[in-house]
């Protein structure tokens, strides 16, 4: 048993034994039946709008094709590079904090905190329920040293006013903390569920072999989570580049002290719904999509995410 479930290094293929007849999944039509309903939804509400958006990105408002003209035009917008620079800074903090903290906390939920795990999961998840406008009020208070419950922390960091906390150079970190606060809980729940599916025998075997919790985590659990971690990385990167809610919230809570085009996604929104320019908005969105896909491709290939079965 333990042999057949031996841990493989990430990306290394298992040697496929020739499957006897009737053993593995048959190449056939059954798969189509399973995916057909979803496929219909995907075409209608996913593919068609995406294609339309691509169409918008290569045409102008009169419907004439402009090739890459919109892409060039938005590149020259004075807000374009600052927005991408902002998000780049934000991404670095966000990715590192999210991945490390989620894995560590999930492992702890599974290990040391197992008895308190349902309470812990609830507490970690609580902020995730506060999306968008619901958390505007919370942040208006948390970030303002004059009324915040963590005023001692803010004062300790040297911030005496709200304006200090949201000074432009601090925004990437502030947004990363906000996004982490809302987003970590859900991923912790996912990772915890994934950890549950690792057979206890493996962990027993490692324990018997004398592995510490740390080594068990590093050599047994994390490799088995590799597809989940890959998925988290892809989405964290994509949602990071598409940052929108946090700058909007802090802008609302501060009566406008954050630019309404701080992030590229905000810029796309400005183009679409403030400048009545859906074509340039789609161009910016396609830039973001390309970034997300590039990262996804990298992760997919390195982690074997698309490999079917086990």
């Amino acid at each position, binding site marked *: 048993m333990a042999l057949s479930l031996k841990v493989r290094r990430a990306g290394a293929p298992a040697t496929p034994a020739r499957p006897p007849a009737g053993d593995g999944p048959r190449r056939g039509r059954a798969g189509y039946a399973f995916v057909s309903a979803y496929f219909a939804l995907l075409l209608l509400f996913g593919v068609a709008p995406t294609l339309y958006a691509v169409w918008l990105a290569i045409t102008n408002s009169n419907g004439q094709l402009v090739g*890459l003209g919109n892409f060039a035009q938005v590149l020259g917008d004075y807000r374009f590079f600052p927005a991408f620079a902002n998000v780049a800074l934000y991404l670095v903090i966000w990715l590192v904090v999210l991945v490390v903290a989620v894995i560590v906390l999930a492992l702890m939920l599974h290990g040391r905190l197992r008895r308190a795990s349902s309470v812990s999961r609830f507490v970690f998840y609580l902020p995730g329920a506060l999306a968008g406008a619901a958390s505007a009020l919370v942040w208006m208070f948390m970030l303002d040293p004059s009324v915040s419950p963590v005023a001692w922390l803010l004062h300790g960091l040297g911030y005496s006013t*709200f304006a200090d906390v949201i000074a432009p150079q601090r925004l990437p970190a502030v947004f990363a903390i906000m996004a982490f606060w809302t987003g970590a809980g859900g991923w912790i729940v996912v990772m915890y569920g994934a950890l549950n599916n690792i057979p206890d025998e493996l962990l027993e075997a490692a324990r018997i072999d004398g592995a510490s919790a740390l080594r068990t985590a590093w050599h047994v659990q994390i490799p088995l989570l590799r597809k989940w971690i890959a998925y988290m990385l892809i989405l964290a990167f994509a949602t990071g580049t598409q940052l929108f809610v946090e700058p909007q919230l802090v802008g609302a809570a501060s009566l406008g002290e954050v630019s309404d085009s701080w992030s590229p996604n905000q810029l796309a929104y400005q183009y679409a*719904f403030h400048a009545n320019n859906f074509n*340039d908005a789609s161009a910016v969105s396609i830039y973001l999509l390309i970034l997300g896909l590039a990262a996804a491709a990298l992760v997919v290939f390195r982690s074997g995410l698309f490999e079917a079965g086990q």
Partner: protein
Amino acid sequence: MQYTRKHRRPAVRWAAAAAIASLAAAGLAACGSPNAVNSQAGTSPSAASSAFHAVKQDTSAPITVWVDSTRLPGVKAYQQSHPGVKLNIVTYNGDANGSNYLQTKVELFNRAGSGWPDVVFSEEYNDAAWSVEPGIDWVAPLNQGLVPQSTLANFAPNALAPCTSGGNVYCLRNDIGQNMLWYNSALMKKFGYQVPTTWEQYQALGAEVAKQHPGYITGSVGDPWTPEVYFWASQCPANQISGNTVSVNTGSPDCTKMAKLLDAGVANKSLTTQSAFADSFVKQYAAKTLMLIGPSWYGQYVFNAALHVPAGQVAAAAPLSWSDQPTASTGDVGGGIWMVSKNSANLKAAVALAQYMSTDNAYQLTAPTYPAYQPAATAWLAAQAKQHYFAGDVTGVFTKAATEIWGGWGSGRYSQENIWAATMVPQITSGKTISSLLGTWQTAIENQARSFGYTVG
């Protein structure tokens, strides 16, 4: 081996697909040119709308009206008193605070060809600017017979300026926020100060307060509408809009001398860099606000509701002028507008509602803010006097200030408040002087204007 070959194929496929796609896109470049930023903005709005043709009218059709929660009771009362017209009332956020909801929806309706509300109330008078833009152009001109000229003439001077484009009036102004000098008369008497009448006196008073009563303030530069409060009053040409051209000159003397005044106040801390609506302001200055320069609604909204200053202390004085200024001028912060869709099937009912809400005493007497329609304003002031909150009579100050709004400050598709809050306030709070930031301010305004399709010149 077999595995790696299978592994490599998708990558090659993807790369090939990507390459073909981008070649195709590049090859298509010859067919058209990208949107001139906001491409239709180049043409003059009057060309589109002077020939206004209403759609087929039906005077018994129900009308859809969008209002915010503050105006909702008034519209409901209108339905009660006018049972003949069927109203479909929808509450929305009033397009407040840059939410952009109205423009989002109107753009979608335009592309769908249907769905516009008949009458809309917006808290942002800037909304009229994009509403008449040729690419959107969804509102009906009201001065071509829909609203009597005599009614239009009775609005306060320049109150309808944000509504006016190409010689036509496209909205009715609900209320105005003419700026004036608010002060705490009890504190002023206690400290033995005279109420200033000129900017020079105001600056001198600030210096005295800083010396004798540090911690008390005479104004704020942290509000998003600081430009409207100080620079508009000083007739600074930071927002001159004519047709589709914007011209900004923050280096002009009217701007620089105001910037110097503000810098002096910030330096001696008689002017705070916090917004009057920030919690920290309330905590720090609730009992220490000697005076604030702000709109007519400051009395109730700031001094009463936010700072809880007891009744009988707060008074208003005339807007300040420079000592060498021949006529008084002041700015205007806020004020809502009523717009009517040009695709309305029942223009008569729609205009009647808009006109009623903006001019009729029955509603405006219950309104929380100063009516833009002068006869209604007179009645409003009389009703306010009965509330006995202010020290002394503010009627004269309010009425006169309403006539002194300077006409040289335009209303465009971009937001001066956003620019000040996002670009200027963070730098001011970090210690830079406003005088040193005037160039930054000008660049920011010009950049925003260009991104909305204006020509800057």
